[in-house]
């Protein structure tokens, strides 16, 4: 058994009894999971989030991540300060962490799993909590983007 196997079983658990559908990790241990969510802010149409799962090549960790916003190539110091400062308190980030993808100039919400095993039920619970955190943090980041024009809240996707 390996962590990759556990994640594969966990992904099946997300279907929650559904007979069809489901994604599997690709050869590099990655997959993207679409999740419908209510509209944010003044929006009326529900949106579909994409939550990415990546098992590390060492099979020792896996990461759940989701896009929060586009950011400038060199984000303003007060913006980075705000993120790091919020991350000091678990409540303010719903227990997750912020990360910058410097290659794509994007801000993501991430959670790194570091234990050697995870049960399918734990994975499904973790995924659900992460999805909830993404929705809440999208609201937070939308607030930041109103104060910093360099921060671009993500476009909605159906």
């Amino acid at each position: 058994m390996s962590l990759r196997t556990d994640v594969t079983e966990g992904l099946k658990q997300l279907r929650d009894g559904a007979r069809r559908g489901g994604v599997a990790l690709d050869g590099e241990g990655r997959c993207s999971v679409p999740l419908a969510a209510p509209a944010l802010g003044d929006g009326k149409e529900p949106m579909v989030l994409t939550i990415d799962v990546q098992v590390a090549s060492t099979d020792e960790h896996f990461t759940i991540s989701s896009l929060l916003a586009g950011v400038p190539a060199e984000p303003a110091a007060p913006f980075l300060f705000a993120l790091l400062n919020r991350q000091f308190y678990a409540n303010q980030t719903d227990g997750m962490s912020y990360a910058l993808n410097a290659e794509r100039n994007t801000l993501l919400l991430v959670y790194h799993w570091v234990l050697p095993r995870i049960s399918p039920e734990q994975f499904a619970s973790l995924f659900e909590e992460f999805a909830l955190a993404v929705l809440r943090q999208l609201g937070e980041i939308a607030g930041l983007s109103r104060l910093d024009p360099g921060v671009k809240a993500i476009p909605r996707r159906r």
Partner: protein
Amino acid sequence: MAKGLLSKLSEVLQSAYEAVANVFSGAKAEAVSVACGAKEMLEETVDAAHDVAVEIKDGVVSAARNVDAARREYVYTRQFRQYDGKRYLVCTCNGKTSAEELRFDEAAGEYYAIGRLPDPPFGRGDEVPAPIKPYHQEKIRKPLPGLTHLNGIDVTPAQGIQSARVLSGAVRDGCPQEDGCGCVLYTYSETQGSAKDFSDCLGAKMGLDDRVTKIQERDMRQAIESSDPTRRPLVISAHSRGSIHTDNAWKNVRDDLADKYYKQNPDKYDNSPEAIQAEKDAIAAQQAANATNPDAAVSPAMAGRVARRQKAKDMAERDANKTMNENVHVVTSGNAIRFPDPGQDVTNIYVADDKGKAKDSVTSLTGNTTHGQPVYVDDGTKSQAEKVAREDPIGDKYDDGNYHRFTQWYAKPVAAQYCNKKPKK
């Protein structure tokens, strides 16, 4: 015949000898070549290892020096550490200011005055206040004033108490309802040297022993737990970096309150029409996504659950924000927080030009000028009379060029915010 054979044999043997000799010669050359190569590789490896060892040694020496420098800087810049989080009750009554040092009794949940500072100027011009004169018996201080103050950047304990003194005087002068006395509950937040303080506005600094944030949280919790409807909301004055501590405290208390509200009455939020609608919308959207997307991995039930929980949490947070804003009013001056909590009805006071653009050096660089209610302080450039009026009450030089000094620019407008605050109901 025999001679011929002998000669032939001799040639064969000669050839064989030469062949064997050639083989040995080649092998020897090869062996020599390999050995030479090995020797060179060995020499290169030894050289490289030596270089690496030298680099490591240099690195260790450099790191040791850096650690030593950092240690020395740490010791030097935390010279006011023992004052961090100290609280003083500063009152100006009938033209005279007094200051007491307070101690919080965790068990009783009350503040006690443990001693009194000598008469003003409390050690002005020094870095630390004069030693207190301890009371023989500690005196409970209740009720406490409805105005607290937290200092900001590059402020020594003595300077901070001076700021509270000026603020209390402004309250006495500006609040007729205060019966001739203006009182401020002041908290000292330690300075670590001006350069580092300033960088703290730009980079995360707080460690786990962030006493000042905890004190701000305690004040806010006591304010929202107060059952006296005639009391005015607690006004929290936060200057400069103090706005960061205060915003963190506000978020922490609000999050705890939202969590409390939710746990006390989950039905109110989980079964609210908004939460139920959010669940229905998400289920429908996920069903649509699953029908068209073969990769769809999540059940509609899960999508609905997440959406409903999110809406319920948001509604509990909205209620918590309302309670917070009814009981706590944060007034920043020269704020250093670019992204304040959006749920907070904060008042931001800062020196601005006639177009409302911040001239306060900290606010313009790291602070916020768009959220909440801005109050502009005239920079005093319009008239000499205004300039004179802006003379620092404690007699310091008029203008340090930063438009940031609390006593010079902000004490009066902060006091006005407090004085204008109406009772909760």
